[in-house]
């Protein structure tokens, strides 16, 4: 075993953060209050009663909640819950879009002494049942009719749930079941409750300890069922603290919450980060307007997965492709300058001419692109999740988006992070202070050790998993990585995802997939080749972009199946594959691919809710296709069962062709 432990340059500050209480000063003169989220909210409401705290777009207008309104909503919701018997350590399961009410619900549950847990919005009733049963939740908050219906469907199987609280009454007028309850009714109950118990709220809040569990964060579960990591307030504060060290944000600046709050990102930034420093949390109007609203807000800080950047990149390419010749020329010219500028910058040979040219390019093209994407005021965008193609990374850096990578896990927060002072291409930065990382020699597995303040407190209701992953203080991540001589951390893949060809050559399918997804015609892809002679791919074409291309090329099609199997579409994808193959190490280049006849779907357990592929079920499902590829067939008949969201089943029958490259 190799032990490459970084020193801790800020030991004094850190010790305070790890075990102290009260207030700690940060690197930029900011104050870190070691308190629970409800305590922070109460302080903020007293400090800045009239300052904006939350902003939600409704009816086309940004509506602001100030800290006082924010606090009162949380307070009365918490008292309402308490009046219905919600007490210390009880759990509230929350499912819904990013809304102020989501925040009120979670903070309300915390203020009442309990814990909130988020469920991914597109979970089907069966999955919800698992989350509710595993977490032993006693109350649920479901945004609207759609989400409430899911709970109604499994009502008999979740007897622990006393009430389902909805906050969007549209369509709920005819529901008579007293099991369902309007958010505003709960708040009203809270107001009544306060009259009889005037000090109850403040007392419960003040009992809270910074080491209490703040939330249950479900890990995405590429293998097996999701596990609920218990995370304390202190951990969340400590993780933010490490982030702020390199990328501070200040009171009144805007944070845009658009990823599902069930994911750890909003638990870290949207709740604790924004509460600590008084950032304004902004919520989009609807899931369809996320991009448009992002542009109006322009968050100063963002954490997102590589997938999203890939999607943005593809959309941007499409827009540019459809633009008039003047814009296209300007873009191509600016991009040329940008590429050269970046190369020179890396080599340290920048001169005034190139600096001026880059400024010019920025002025004619890049600034507009940044504005379009909603990053005109961005100070830092951190990329999480799976690895990101260097090509893509370069692109966003050229157009001036401050994009940095990090390596992090739900169980221990940020582990490594790139920062402006020390960037190495392709790395995720160096190991952060207070964490230790070991790489096992056999499988290159990453082991993480951190002070208990920065680690999760085990999985809820799953000691088995806790013991399996947490041994002698080291957390076994299941990720493969290596650290170079300078201490830069390079993420490779999940160990379970690494593959080897028949001759023993190792390759990372995730890496090849992320490269392939850079093509605007490829929406998703699964790479195969374990114990085979060569690497091949099952490609899911991008219906929108390929559809547009087909229209422009006068190719008629009716359905996804039809379009995906057209000869010219195969030619198009083959061209894309040929280009991308040049960016992949020679031994793992694609030798064959098929265009799948259907899209990957999380409802059929083909992906996780965070849109990572679940290889084992996929491999089983597309077994005939994969065997066909390696048997040298040209066409393979397929018959696939499709499960619709409402539970009905259908089937897709088609014949897919194999293209060799």
């Amino acid at each position, binding site marked *: 075993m190799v032990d490459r432990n970084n020193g801790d340059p800020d030991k004094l500050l850190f010790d305070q953060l790890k075990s102290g209480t009260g207030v700690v000063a940060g690197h930029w003169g900011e104050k870190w209050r070691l308190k629970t989220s409800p305590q922070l909210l109460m302080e903020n409401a007293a400090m800045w009663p009239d300052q904006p705290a939350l902003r939600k777009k409704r*009816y086309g207008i940004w509506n602001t909640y100030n800290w006082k309104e924010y606090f009162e909503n949380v307070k009365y919701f918490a008292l309402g819950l308490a009046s219905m018997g919600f007490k210390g350590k009880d759990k509230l399961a929350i499912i819904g879009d990013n809304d102020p009410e989501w925040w009120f619900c979670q903070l309300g549950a915390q203020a009442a002494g309990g814990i909130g847990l988020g469920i991914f919005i597109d979970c089907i009733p069966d999955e919800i049942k698992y989350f509710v049963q595993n977490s032993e939740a006693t109350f649920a908050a479901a945004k609207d009719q759609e989400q409430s219906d899911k709970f109604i469907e499994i009502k008999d199987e979740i007897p622990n749930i006393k009430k389902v609280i909805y906050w969007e009454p549209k*369509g709920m007028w005819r529901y008579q079941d007293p099991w369902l309850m309007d958010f505003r009714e709960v708040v009203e109950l809270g107001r009544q409750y306060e009259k009889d118990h005037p000090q109850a709220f403040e007392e419960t809040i003040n009992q809270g300890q910074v080491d209490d569990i703040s939330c249950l964060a479900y890990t995405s579960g590429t293998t097996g069922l999701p596990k609920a990591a218990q995370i304390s307030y202190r951990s969340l504060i400590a993780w933010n603290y490490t982030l702020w060290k390199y990328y501070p944000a200040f009171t009144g600046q805007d944070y845009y919450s658009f990823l599902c709050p069930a994911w750890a990102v909003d638990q870290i930034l949207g709740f604790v980060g924004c509460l600590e420093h008084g950032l304004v949390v902004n919520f989009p109007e*609807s899931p*369809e307007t996320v991009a448009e609203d992002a542009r109006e807000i322009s968050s100063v800080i963002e954490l997102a997965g590589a997938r999203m950047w890939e999607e943005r990149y593809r959309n941007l390419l499409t827009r540019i492709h459809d633009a008039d010749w003047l814009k296209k020329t300007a873009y191509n010219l600016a991009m040329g300058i940008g590429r050269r500028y970046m190369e020179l910058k890396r080599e340290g040979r920048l001169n005034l001419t190139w600096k001026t040219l880059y400024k010019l390019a920025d002025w004619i093209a890049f600034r507009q692109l940044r504005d379009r994407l909603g990053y005109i005021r961005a100070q830092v965008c951190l990329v999480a999740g799976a690895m990101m193609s260097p090509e893509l990374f370069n692109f966003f850096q050229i157009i001036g988006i401050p994009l940095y990578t990090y390596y992090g896990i739900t169980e221990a927060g940020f582990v490594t992070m790139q920062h402006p002072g020390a960037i190495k291409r392709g790395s995720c930065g160096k190991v952060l202070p207070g964490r230790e990382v070991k790489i096992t020699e056999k499988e290159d597995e990453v082991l993480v050790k951190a002070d208990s303040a920065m680690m999760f407190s085990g999985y809820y209701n799953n000691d088995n998993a806790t013991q399996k992953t947490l041994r002698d203080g080291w957390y076994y991540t299941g990720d493969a990585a290596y650290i170079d001589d300078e201490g830069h951390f390079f993420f490779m893949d999940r160990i379970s995802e690494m593959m080897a060809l028949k001759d023993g050559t190792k390759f990372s399918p995730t890496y090849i997939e992320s490269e392939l997804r850079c093509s605007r015609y490829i929406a998703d892809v699964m790479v195969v080749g374990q114990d085979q002679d060569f690497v091949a791919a099952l490609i899911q074409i991008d219906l929108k972009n390929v559809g547009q291309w087909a229209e422009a090329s006068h190719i008629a099609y009716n359905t996804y199946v039809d379009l995906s199997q057209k000869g010219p579409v195969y030619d198009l994808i083959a061209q894309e594959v040929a280009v991308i193959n040049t960016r992949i190490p020679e031994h793992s280049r694609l030798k064959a691919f098929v265009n799948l006849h259907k899209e990957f779907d999380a409802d059929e357990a083909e992906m996780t809710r965070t849109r990572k592929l679940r290889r084992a079920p996929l491999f089983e499902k597309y077994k005939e296709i994969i065997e066909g590829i390696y048997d040298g067939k040209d066409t393979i008949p397929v018959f696939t069962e499709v499960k619709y969201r409402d539970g009905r089943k259908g089937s897709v029958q088609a014949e897919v062709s194999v293209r060799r490259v």
Partner: protein
Amino acid sequence: MEKPSREQREVLKVEDISLSFGGVDALKGVSFIVNPGEILAIIGPNGAGKTCILNSINGFYRPQKGRIFFEGVEITKMPPHRICAMGVARVFQNVELYTGLTTLENLMAARHSRMKQSIITNALWFGWARREEVGHRKIVEHIIDFLEIQGIRKQTVGMLPYGLRKRVELGRALALEPRVLLLDEPMAGMNLEEKEDMVRFVLDIAEREGFPVVLIEHDMGVVMDIADRIIVLDNGEVLTEGLPQEIAANPKVAEAYMGSDELW
């Protein structure tokens, strides 16, 4: 949310109307009423005269015989724009929107019949005119929210897919603040998901606004699911009317739809 109280009088009353074009009798003495808050479906084979009934109600056609009452007022001979201003809104079978305008502009245009300011004050956009427009915008924004079309607020209608255009068309009808809504095949040409959305909106409208909806629809699954009452039309005559389950069990209906038994 409390539902508006319902009067027990019929909202719309069609009394023995007959309509012919030259020698073709499109409607032959059709009578029916529309009760407050109900979803009334009119079904029948092609050419049975379903659309003719709607066209007679909102004044496009003048029946040669018979009378039509809306909330007790006779509207048989009124011009279409006056019937519309009284609160009879219609969603057409073929989308009839301004394709060059955005969703928002289309809905705002529908508010025109409710605008009181003159062309000059509106052009200056000052004082009352400004306040009035803000008020109308608020109503339109609530409709946008209701129909979940925030994402296409500023998109040109001509560029939208068919299912969404239909939804905008429904929004346009709602922007008229109707007291009865006439829907002519709102789900024709839609895929399953779009149909489900549309059904949900129609139910929500009837439920929230409390006004009746008259629906012409070919998809029998949809009709049986959402209609409170069904009228079956054949050859310009009312064949029968009743509750969905009665209609489903009626052999005459099957015959009108499928032709006579000899076909089988």
